[in-house]
C-alpha cells in the first residue's frame, strides 16, 4: 500500500505539471484565435502517429520521436546525476558538443578501421571528451569553489566556439566555403534498425526514412547504468550523501572533493556519449546545425520532469521527443506556430519549479496529507533545496 501511495505521490507532480502546461497552452492558443483541440491533435499525430488526418505515416512519426528522444535520455542523466550531488550541471550542451567533436575527429582520422574497432573508439572518445569538459567544472568547484553553474555555462560557450573554429576554417572543415566537416568513416556509424535503402519499401515508405538507430539501446542502457550507479554502488551512496549534506558526508568519511569531481566526470561522459551517438547514428558529420542545438538545455527540463530517476528521465524524454516531432506537424496541419512547443516546455518547467501542485494540495482540505502518511514526495523540489543547502556559505568543499 505504501509503495502504491508513494508511486502515485511521485507521479502527481510531473503529471500535474504536464496537465497544467497543456491547459495553459490551450488557453494561449484559444486566446490567439487558434483551436487548441486541433493543435493538440496535430501534436499527438506528429509525436505518436495517432489520429493523423493528413495522411502522415504513423511509423515515420514514431521513428522521428525516437530519434529526437535518444540524446535527451543520456543528457537528462548527465543533468540528473549531479543534481543528486547537489550540483547544477548547466553544461550538458557543451559536453555534448565536446563528445560530438571528439567522435567526428576520431571517425575521420581513423576512417578506414572496421566497425568492431572504430565504433567503440568513437563512442568512448566522445565520452572521454565530455568527461573532460565537465571535469574542468568539477575540479574548479572542488578546489577553488568556483560555482559550477557559472563554469559549466562558460564551458558551453567555449565548446560552441571551438566547434565553429573546427568546421569553419579549422582542421575538420570539409572544404573552403563550407560550414561542415568531412563525413566519418563507415566503420564509425551506428547501424539503423532498418537498412538505409531507398528501394526497400517498409510501411509504405522507403526504409531509409526511418532513422531509428541502435543508439536508442545504448541510451536506455545508460539510463539503467545511472540507476544502478546511484542506488546500488558505494559511489552512488557517496554522491547522494554529498547532495544531502556535505558536512554530514565529510563526517561519515566521504571525500567531498573527490565525489564532486567524479560526479562531474561521469555526468560529462553521459553527455559526451549523447553527442557521439548523434554523430555516429544520425548525422555522420559535424555541421552548422550543431550551432543551434538545444538538446543539453532541454535535458535540464527532462531531468526535472523525470524527478531525477532513470525511468522518469526516459518517460520525460519520450514526451519531449514527441513534442519536438509533433511541433511541425501541428504547424502544417492545424496552422498553429510550432513555437507553441517551446511554450509548453517552458510551462512544464515553470510549473515544476514553482511547485504549483504542492500549493494546490495545501489549499484543498480533502487532498491534505493525513497524519501518518509518508513524507511528501517532491523530489525535484527537494533536489533544489539540497542544492541550495550545498551552496550555503561555510559549506565549501574542503
Amino acid at each position: 500500500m505504501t509503495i502504491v501511495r508513494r508511486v502515485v505521490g511521485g507521479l502527481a507532480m510531473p503529471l500535474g505539471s504536464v496537465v497544467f502546461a497543456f491547459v495553459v497552452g490551450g488557453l494561449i492558443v484559444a486566446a490567439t484565435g487558434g483551436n487548441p483541440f486541433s493543435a493538440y491533435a496535430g501534436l499527438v499525430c506528429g509525436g505518436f502517429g495517432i489520429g493523423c488526418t493528413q495522411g502522415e505515416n504513423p511509423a515515420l512519426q514514431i521513428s522521428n520521436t525516437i530519434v529526437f528522444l535518444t540524446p535527451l535520455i543520456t543528457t537528462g542523466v548527465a543533468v540528473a546525476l549531479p543534481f543528486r550531488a547537489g550540483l547544477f550541471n548547466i553544461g550538458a550542451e557543451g559536453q555534448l558538443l565536446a563528445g560530438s567533436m571528439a567522435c567526428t575527429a576520431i571517425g575521420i582520422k581513423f576512417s578506414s578501421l572496421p566497425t568492431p574497432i572504430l565504433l567503440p573508439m568513437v563512442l568512448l572518445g566522445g565520452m572521454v571528451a565530455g568527461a573532460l569538459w565537465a571535469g574542468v567544472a568539477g575540479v574548479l568547484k572542488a578546489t577553488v569553489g568556483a560555482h559550477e553553474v557559472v563554469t559549466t555555462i562558460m564551458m558551453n560557450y567555449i565548446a560552441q566556439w571551438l566547434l565553429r573554429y573546427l568546421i569553419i576554417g579549422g582542421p575538420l572543415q570539409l572544404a573552403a566555403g563550407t560550414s561542415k566537416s568531412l563525413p566519418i568513416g563507415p566503420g564509425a556509424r551506428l547501424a539503423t534498425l532498418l537498412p538505409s535503402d531507398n528501394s526497400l519499401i517498409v510501411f509504405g515508405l522507403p526504409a531509409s526514412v526511418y532513422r531509428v538507430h541502435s543508439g536508442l539501446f545504448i541510451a536506455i542502457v545508460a539510463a539503467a547504468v545511472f540507476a544502478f550507479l546511484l542506488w546500488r554502488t558505494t559511489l552512488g551512496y557517496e554522491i547522494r550523501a554529498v547532495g544531502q549534506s556535505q558536512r554530514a558526508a565529510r563526517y561519515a568519511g566521504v571525500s567531498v572533493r573527490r565525489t564532486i569531481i567524479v560526479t562531474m566526470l561521469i555526468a560529462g561522459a553521459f553527455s559526451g556519449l549523447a553527442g557521439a551517438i548523434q554523430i555516429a547514428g544520425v548525422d555522420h558529420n559535424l555541421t552548422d546545425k550543431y550551432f543551434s542545438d538545444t538538446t543539453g538545455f532541454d535535458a535540464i527540463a527532462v531531468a526535472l520532469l523525470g524527478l531525477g530517476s532513470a525511468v522518469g528521465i526516459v518517460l520525460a524524454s519520450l514526451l519531449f521527443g514527441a513534442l519536438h516531432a509533433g511541433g511541425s506537424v501541428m504547424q502544417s496541419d492545424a496552422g498553429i506556430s510550432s513555437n507553441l512547443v517551446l511554450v509548453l516546455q517552458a510551462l512544464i518547467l515553470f510549473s515544476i519549479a514553482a511547485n504549483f501542485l504542492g500549493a494546490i494540495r495545501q489549499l484543498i482540505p480533502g487532498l491534505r496529507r493525513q497524519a501518518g502518511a509518508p513524507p511528501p514526495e517532491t523530489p525535484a523540489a527537494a533536489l533544489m533545496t539540497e542544492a541550495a543547502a550545498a551552496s550555503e556559505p561555510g559549506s565549501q568543499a574542503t
Partner: protein
Amino acid sequence: MGQTRLRLLGLVAVALMLAAACGGTSSNTSTKQFKIGLVTDIGGLNDKSFNHLADVGLLKAVTDFNVKGDVKESKTGDDYIPNLTNFASTGYDLVIGVGFLMQEAVGTVSGQFPNVHFAIIDGSGTDAAGNDLKHANVASLFFREQDAGAMVGVISGMLEKQGKLKNNKGVISAVGGVSIPPVNHYIAGYKWAATMEDPGIKVLVGYSNDFTDPAKCKGVAQQQIQGNSDVVFQVAGGCGLGALQAAGQAGVKSIGVDADQKDADPSVIASALKKVDVATYTAIKSVVNGQFAAGALTFDIQNDGAGYQVDNFTLPADILAEVTKIHDEIKAGTLTPPADIPA
C-alpha cells in the same frame, strides 16, 4: 550477424509500435489541387529575410493558382530531414527547402521520394561530402547575389567618394555570416562596384560565423566602424540585424540584405534584394503548369530576381543616374559583376 539480429529486433519493435497506431492513408481526389510544402531553415518565418520572402512567394501562388500551401518552421537543424520527409510522405507535389543549410537534407530526402518535386533556395541536393547529387526531381534556385551587391556597392562607393559621410576616410565594410558562396557573392559585387566608383576605396570584410545571433554581428560591425567604416553592408541574415544596429548607434550608414530592411534600423539607406519570393513563385508555377525542370535555375537582375531598394534616404540625382545606368548595363549583359571577392 549481430547487425542482422539487431535489425530484426528493430523490425519487431517498429511493428509492435504500429499495432498500437494505425493511421489512415491519403486518398487522391479527382480534381487535382496541388499541394506545396515550404520548410524554413532555423531563421524562421519572421526573419525579415529569405524565409519570410519564400512565404510571400508561396502565399502569392496560393492566391494565383489555388494551390494548398503549408509551412513547417525548423527550430533546429535536426528538424530539416523530418520536416522535408513529412511533406514528401503526405502527398505534397512540391517541397521547397529554404536555404543553403538544407542542401544535405534535400539531397537525402529527394533520393527517397523520386516522385515528389523538390526545390531548394541557394543550393542543390548534395551528399554528405557536399557533391551535387543531381537528382532528376530537384530544382536548384540560385541567385546572382553579386548583381544586387553591385547595386548597393555603387551607392556606397559614390557616397564615400563625394565625402558626404561621417568619417570620410574612404572606408566602407561588409559583415558576412559564414564564408559560403551566397554570402561571398554579395560581398564580391559590393566591393567590385564600390571600387569601380572610387578606385581608392578600402572595403573591410569580416565574418561573424553566425546567422542568428545579432550580438555577434554587432561586434564585427563595431570593429569595422572603429576602423572608420562609413557604410556597413550586412550579409548575415538575422545576425546581421545587429550590424545594422551598430551602424545606427555609431551614426554611420548601413545596408540591408535579401529583403527590404528599411524598418530594421533608421541607419539603413538601401537594401540589396534577393527576390526569393520570385524564385519560390516561379518554382510553384512550373509544377502547376507541368513544366518542372530539374537542375539550376538562376535569378538575377536580368530576370528581375535580384535588385536593390533605396530606404530612409533620397539618392542625390547624380548617384541615382549612375545607379540606374549600372543597373541597365547589368540588365543588358554588358556589365557582369564577379562571383568571387576581388583582391
